[in-house]
């Protein structure tokens, strides 16, 4: 099982949880598993076989869009981070 960190904007869909668990050897398998375990969260992140455009998915700190996308490997020990797309520039 990998840990999936949930950003504040998606916690309602995760029943308030900051972290959930999901399993899969690739990002695709993991997101499909997530959609079964936490359907409301899953559909916000992953729909029609693609990661939603305003969501970034990171495996061990690296954006999967610059790795192998949905085929990026995930390990049991991996931390997966979901983040909303944000404008750059510091917030203070």
């Amino acid at each position: 099982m990998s840990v999936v960190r949930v950003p504040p904007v998606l916690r309602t869909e995760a029943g308030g949880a900051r972290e959930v668990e999901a399993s899969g050897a690739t990002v695709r398998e993991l997101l499909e598993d997530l959609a079964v375990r936490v359907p409301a969260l899953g559909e916000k992140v992953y729909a029609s076989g693609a990661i939603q455009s305003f969501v970034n998915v990171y495996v061990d700190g690296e954006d999967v869009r610059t790795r192998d996308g949905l085929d990026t490997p995930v390990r049991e020990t991996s931390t997966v981070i979901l983040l909303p797309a944000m404008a750059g520039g510091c917030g203070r």
Partner: protein
Amino acid sequence: MVGRSLLDLIGSTPLVELTHIQPHGRRMLAKLEGQNPTGSIKDRIALAMVEAADLPPGAELLEPTSGNTGISLALVAKLKGLKLTCVMPANATPERRTLLELYGATIIESPGELGSNGAVQLAQEIAGRNSRYTMLFQYANDANPRAHYEGTGAEIADALPRVDALVAGLGTGGTLMGTGARLRDTFPDVQIVAAEPLPGDPVMGLRSLDDGYVPPILDVSKLDRKLLVSNAEAAAAVHRLVAQEGLFAGVSAGAVVHVARRIAEELPEGAVVVCVLADGGWKYLSAPFWSGEAIDDETLWW
């Protein structure tokens, strides 16, 4: 060099080797953008965007900014006879506000908890209602990456016979897109690597995912790597830069060096990694982490 105005002194920043931080057998070269006239890389894009807009004297600019771009635009506006209003998050550091006011800019505050997204939204609303404002809008202005293609990237390509990787901070995407494209012209196999801030919960104040924002000038498919950097990692690298290299740099510079070292370790012996250090540490002096205090996750520092 003798400039006719400070605008002539923008760009042509030096590179310095990080001899104490680079891994054995690899070179890490830092491009010191803090040496621009207002102390950041944003001087380049402010000048390029204003010149591309070709505005009449007295025209009024409006820009969402967390600081550096506003300060750069304030200098350029002053020297070109334009007015500037900045929309910035209410919790911006006092150094930034003071500098903006000294340069003569007007400040409109956006809700601090909404961060840069909030400033962008508010600026767009204000510009939509008031036709007197010209919003150069760094997130969507082609002059932003072009300034880096013609300036930052060309300077690096002219200075170095080999570049294996470019590492820069991800904000608007302008530095990475423009510098990266120019370096690819000369070094086709160069890796373009983005260092991205890992935001803590309090700064992700979006009301819904639809408030998300991807800058139009950013094409993620042009990046080879995109790595998150925590505040703690960036602060540790900032401390290391000043302790080991004597280089007093900003937080995003710390993040860039953190990522650059990791990339340099992955590359073969002889590799050259260029790190773009966007600003110096001056505008962050009021931040708590210089004294060794633990850095919080509650602030997005770049």
